[in-house]
């Protein structure tokens, strides 16, 4: 026969671990019954305070994410179509731009070649005697200059 419940036995009782011996004692001992009643009532008051709806934050309105079908609203469809069109147009405009650039470069090269050709023609035209007869001109020039020197000497 136990005299009174120990601290461990009281805790055991509270968590629901009740042996026949404990139950028998609690039935007979008013002091232990009182102590158990006090702890159980305190826990119960704690529980009541915690469960009081006035102390709870109200449940938020739950907005379930819309299913995929409702994604198709007109503004979204128009926006997506515009974005897709812009994406598709990008490579085309890039190709057009590279083609234009190539043509421009070709034109520049042609203009440079033309300029070179014209320059060489100009230089050829500016010569008084054709290139093949150039040695004769040199000779004539040489002769005339040596004759002048000879006359001066005389």
């Amino acid at each position, binding site marked *: 026969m136990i005299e009174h419940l120990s601290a461990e036995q009281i805790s055991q009782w509270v968590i629901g671990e009740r042996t026949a011996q404990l139950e028998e004692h609690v039935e007979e001992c008013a002091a232990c019954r009182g102590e158990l009643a006090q*702890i159980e009532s305190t826990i119960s008051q*704690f529980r009541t305070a915690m469960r009081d709806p006035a102390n709870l934050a109200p449940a938020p309105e739950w907005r379930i994410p819309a299913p995929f079908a409702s994604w198709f609203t007109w503004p979204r469809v128009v926006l997506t179509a515009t974005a897709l069109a812009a994406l598709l147009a990008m490579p085309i405009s890039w190709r057009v731009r590279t083609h234009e650039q190539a043509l421009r470069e070709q034109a520049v090269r042609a203009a440079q070649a033309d300029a070179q050709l014209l320059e060489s023609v100009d230089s050829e035209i500016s010569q008084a005697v054709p290139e093949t007869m150039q040695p004769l001109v040199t000779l004539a020039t040489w002769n005339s200059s040596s004759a002048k020197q000879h006359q001066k000497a005389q």
Partner: protein
Amino acid sequence: MAPAVERSRELDDFESVVRLYWPKVFRFALASLRDRHAAESLAQDCFWRAYRSRDSFRGEASVATWLMQIAVNLVRDRARDRRWQFWKRARQTAVDATSAAAWIRDRGASPEDSALIRERVEAVWKATSNLSERQRTVFLLRFVEDMDLLEIAAATGLKEGTVKIHLFRAVQAIRERMAK
């Protein structure tokens, strides 16, 4: 209909699930974190996670136990969060505005009785804040949420025997606090 299938079906109407279980999750979060805003945010996070993983719910446990399992994990993660620990410490030095004792309604009790009840509830509130995270979780699930040991074991991922030990130690600590 099999209970597991019936439980899974409960999630089809998720709006009702939130309405029905919000108080339970919020209450547990509030008692664990001691901060209304943090508790609200954690409860919202709990339902959002539950919604996203609802397809993985097989109905082995009840929806309430499953939700509490998510809430327990979130509280555990929060307790490990260093920033949270810092703010918690900073708050402890200030006046504790949140206390279950302030939520007691008189309900016709005499001023002396009301004061006594408040004092006791305050003692339990303070004692639970000094418990380890596991002891507090187990205590709250058992004595505030009325969950049995098996449900607590499922929600916490602990063995039934371990739950019993944590519960025993929590009650011991609370009794010691009340005796002071």
